[in-house]
């Protein structure tokens, strides 16, 4: 218990940094896919952005996979239709990757 608390504490500032980094990267990817400047927050979903259809989704997904060197499974794709869900999943994936590297 003591040990895990320390880990959480240690991670907190990193977590904030990571979220910011992910959000910035997503804004870059979205702006590229939709060919216009796009500002994102956790509440944005496919209904808020015009043209966010399945094709755009695949483009976004593949760009994220390339940028962060992670892979999404078929069952996870459902969560990728809003930014909040997308960021949560990405955090898990990035952490998994970092742990495996250690």
């Amino acid at each position, binding site marked *: 218990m003591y040990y895990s608390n320390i880990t959480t504490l240690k991670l907190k500032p990193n977590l904030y940094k990571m979220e910011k980094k992910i959000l910035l990267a997503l804004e870059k990817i979205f702006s590229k896919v939709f060919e216009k400047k796009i500002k994102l927050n956790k509440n944005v979903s496919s209904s808020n952005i015009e043209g966010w259809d*399945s*094709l755009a989704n*695949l483009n976004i997904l*593949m760009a994220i996979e*390339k940028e962060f060197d992670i*892979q999404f*499974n078929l069952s996870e794709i459902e969560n990728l239709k809003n930014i909040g869900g997308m960021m949560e999943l990405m955090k898990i994936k990035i952490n998994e990757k970092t742990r495996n590297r250690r």
Partner: protein
Amino acid sequence: MNKIKIAFFANIAYQLLEKDLIRFFKEHNITLEIFKTNFNNIVSDGLKINHNLKKFNPDFIVVFDNIHYKDTSILLCSNNNKINILENLSLVVKNEYKSKLIIANHFQNQFRPSGNLNTNINLKVKKFNNLLKKLSNTLNFFVLDIDFISNIHGLKYFLNSRNNYAYTFPFSLEAIEIISKEIFLIIFSELINKKKLIILDLDNTLWPGVIGEDVENFSLSYDNPANRAFIDFQEYLLELKNNGIMLAISSKNNPTIISKIFKIKNFKFKKSDFVSINLSFNRKDLEIKKIIKKINIHPKDVVFIDDSDFERDIVSATFPDMHIPDLGRNPENFIQILDEYCYFYSNFRTAEDKSKTEMILANSKRKNLKNNFINYHDYLKSLKMEIKVYELNDSNFHRCLQLINKTSQFNFNKYTMTERELLDYKSKNRFVYCAELIDKYGSNGIISCLYGDFTSNNLSIKNWVMSCRVFKRDVEYNFLFFILKKLVTSNKSKISIQYKENQYNTILKDLKKHLQLKYLSNSKYFINLNVLFEYNYFKIKTKLI
């Protein structure tokens, strides 16, 4: 041509290919316009006429079939149905959309449920890909060889099942660029001027080392890895030769030594594989000038391969239009480097292409024969020539298109045509005729093509082209006279031809003089049939087949 229009009939998310496709064309200053189609049931939707697509006027239609969609895949139809569908598809594309058809074949299945036993689906894929290859020649469509490119890059790298299940796109992110490049190459190779001749150096190009330094011990045995790489390169060149690319040698070597090489084991060439063998210690650019003159070819249609920087530089300075790739010093990379230039990428092979080297060599025999005659008329007579005239049909269509688009010297206005434009000439009041020349050395193949339109009082020749191989044999007068006699029904008919002089078609000046062509307007020249009647040319037996 600065704009290309394409459409997809696909049950994959082809839209993912768009960005890369547009980029590849843009790199060559071509704008690509892609017609928006929905996810397609190729079997049913592909055969229905889409009027919007017809209006869009596509140059190419790409068919992409995904076996994952079992009810919409061509591959999973019965065998007879497959052929029917492909036949109908090619007819619809050709006649309704006046477009060229590209059909993607299938990649192999990644999985082997029964280990080494061939799985049912893999056998189906192999059979279908073979069928597609076979039908592509008779139905005149291009095969987008997904099987080949997926094998080169590896199926694991190329495919992504998640994308397939979730987004109807069976390929990985990395495959997108590769597939787009392949589609681009098929289309681009139809637009560009393809290379016709490779002039090769010998030492360190066709074999390792310098043969002149140790003739007695020279060998091309398979024990030596470098030999094997050079032999593979020889085989690659031979394959090009069999596909209609001419080969010639220009080397600073002794003819006696080189004649020995043709007897050496594992040297893949015969002397007759080369249209010209120039062995001399003269300057290379001067020797190459001789070859070009002999074959009657423009330097822009020639690729020169030599390991020496010095030789490449001097040839490049004399012939800035010639393509002179640096294949480097490592023979294991020669094929890959040359292949990537796509100089010889070709979708169709005409009968004339296959026997080009033989035809050129027969031409040399004709020239030798000519030297034995003092009187040119006697020489022409001895050739026992005959001209067969054909209307445009399926078997000569591609050769005619090739002649119209590739001929640069005997070409009245250098108007290049798409397949669709030529097809349009099959209609009423329009004509396309081509001529095959046969002589005692064999057939020269289809060597001339002439097309235009006519009404009761007017006959207008839009363009007329002839292969430079048969110049100065009076074929042109016989062919023109034959066609005009056939088409002109009244003495009052006005006959005209579109003629635009350019730096390449200077050879037509004599013809213009002999036929006394008179300028009308807008590059149109008037042909006086009486002048042709009276002109004293060598008469050749000519008939319509």
